[in-house]
């Protein structure tokens, strides 16, 4: 199956050029710009909850990019896990601790430049790897969708089983770790009178486990 897919993508690459973009490619670029902009606002805004809401826009933009690449299943899982659970968890944490309306003067860090360096380095490495790996790969949008649930599942469980299982073990470790940490914080109140809030941070990785 991958062989036919590879020939299809090579065949599709022959008929493409960078100078005559199709409508989908233009849409892909525009959505990418919106996503990048939302991500930048997320890390630069001084309003904590606004940062979380801009993160929703950025993650949603990523989902749209997946959709444009015909990876429908990945797109919806992206919305389900990141917008539906992770951001809700973030907002929950913010509301539980502090979520002032308006600017937070201390929503900044002295590590700004170190963080920027790490971020740029990571971005460069990722872009380099992806460009190098998929330079001549084109997705044939007119043929059968290359990212349907069936294709995604088959390649995930045929070629990528080991990384997949390793990731689930990692998530399981995070889950156990979260439970251990939340228990250690309240050694005397570990009875039935425990608040539910202490349990909730453990729910994030657990949901990822269930949703995959």
């Amino acid at each position: 199956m991958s062989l036919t897919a590879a020939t299809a993508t090579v065949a599709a690459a022959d008929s493409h050029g960078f100078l005559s973009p199709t409508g989908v490619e233009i849409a892909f670029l525009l959505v990418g710009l919106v996503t990048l902009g939302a991500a930048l606002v997320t890390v630069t805004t001084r309003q904590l909850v606004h940062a979380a809401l801009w993160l929703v826009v950025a993650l949603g933009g990523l989902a749209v990019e997946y959709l444009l690449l015909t990876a429908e299943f990945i797109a919806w899982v992206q919305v389900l896990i990141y917008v539906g659970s992770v951001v809700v968890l973030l907002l929950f944490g913010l509301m539980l601790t502090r979520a002032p309306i308006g600017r937070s003067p201390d929503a900044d860090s002295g590590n700004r430049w170190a963080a920027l360096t790490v971020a740029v380095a990571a971005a460069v490495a990722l872009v380099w790897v992806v460009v190098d790996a998929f330079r001549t790969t084109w997705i044939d949008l007119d043929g059968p969708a290359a990212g349907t649930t069936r294709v995604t599942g088959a390649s995930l469980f045929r070629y990528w089983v080991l990384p997949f299982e390793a990731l689930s073990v990692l998530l399981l470790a995070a889950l156990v770790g979260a439970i251990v940490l939340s228990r250690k914080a309240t050694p005397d109140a570990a009875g039935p009178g425990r608040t539910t809030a202490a349990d909730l941070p453990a729910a994030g990785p657990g949901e990822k486990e269930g949703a995959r």
Partner: protein
Amino acid sequence: MNDALDVALRLLVVFVVFLTFPLIIGQTEHKVMAHMQGRLGPMYAGGFHGWAQLIADGVKFAQKEDVVPAGADRRVFQLAPAVALLPYLLVLLAIPIGPSAGAVGQVLDAGVFFVLAVMGVGVLGSLMAGWASANKFSLLGGLRTAAQLLAYELPMLLAAASVAMAAGTVSLPGILHGFHWWWVPWQLVGAVVFFVAGLAELQRPPFDMPVADSEIIFGAYTEYTGLRFALFLLAEYAGIVVLCGLTTVLFLGGWHGPWGTDGLGWLWTLLKTAILAFVVIWLRVTYPRLREDQLQKLSWTLLVPLSLAQIALTGIVKVVIQ
């Protein structure tokens, strides 16, 4: 041109359904509650059986002043009702009501994931409303909403995954094409878990802790007035339509019925959806509100294990019958 017309027609039909069905359910709720609790108020307006009550409510909402509190985060506060309502419009697009190819707004390859993902987004509207209102009751309501979503998303997803396993597909029409009558008893536990978790996600009684009007004064919606408040109410009723439609499609066989599947399939879907919607209203007038800790306990200690057991059962039966 024909394609564009087809798409436009489908969108129009879905939009009309989106505008009318929630109102029909709202009207039904008025009447059913009035009968079950012996209320006289909703039976008065307009004469016969109080038919004009809904219109009176609509006029009342439209007349009220749209207030944004001085301390609120203006933009988020005003955006929240739209974020709460629009996802349900999108979900309606994917729910098939009949066996033919024309009886669904848009066939999606990963329909189950689409509907669950988008329904989860709707809850962000309540969170935004709760935070942006600058009101401690609203903030408490938002917190409870988030906690409730995190607790009930998992069993709902697991129950839906069980059906997807049984059918071998995650497309909603695909699931219905593979349906046999014995799936109903086979997936019964999953159906109950899905329905209960869906009720909790919609914050309907007995899971209405986040809006508990007698404790935190309607929670995230305390500060809302007029049309924006009406939009939140509309989102709740649209949510009932979506939840009942989804339960019908996933667990009750959608358009399948004892007879008339070919011509009258859509009628079966609507009938099952209507019966489920009646059950939702019935539960509202029957059960008292759960406490917050009881609500979390119900999900983590009962619904999650039950849905995992249902998945195990589905897997075993699936292997045996192959």
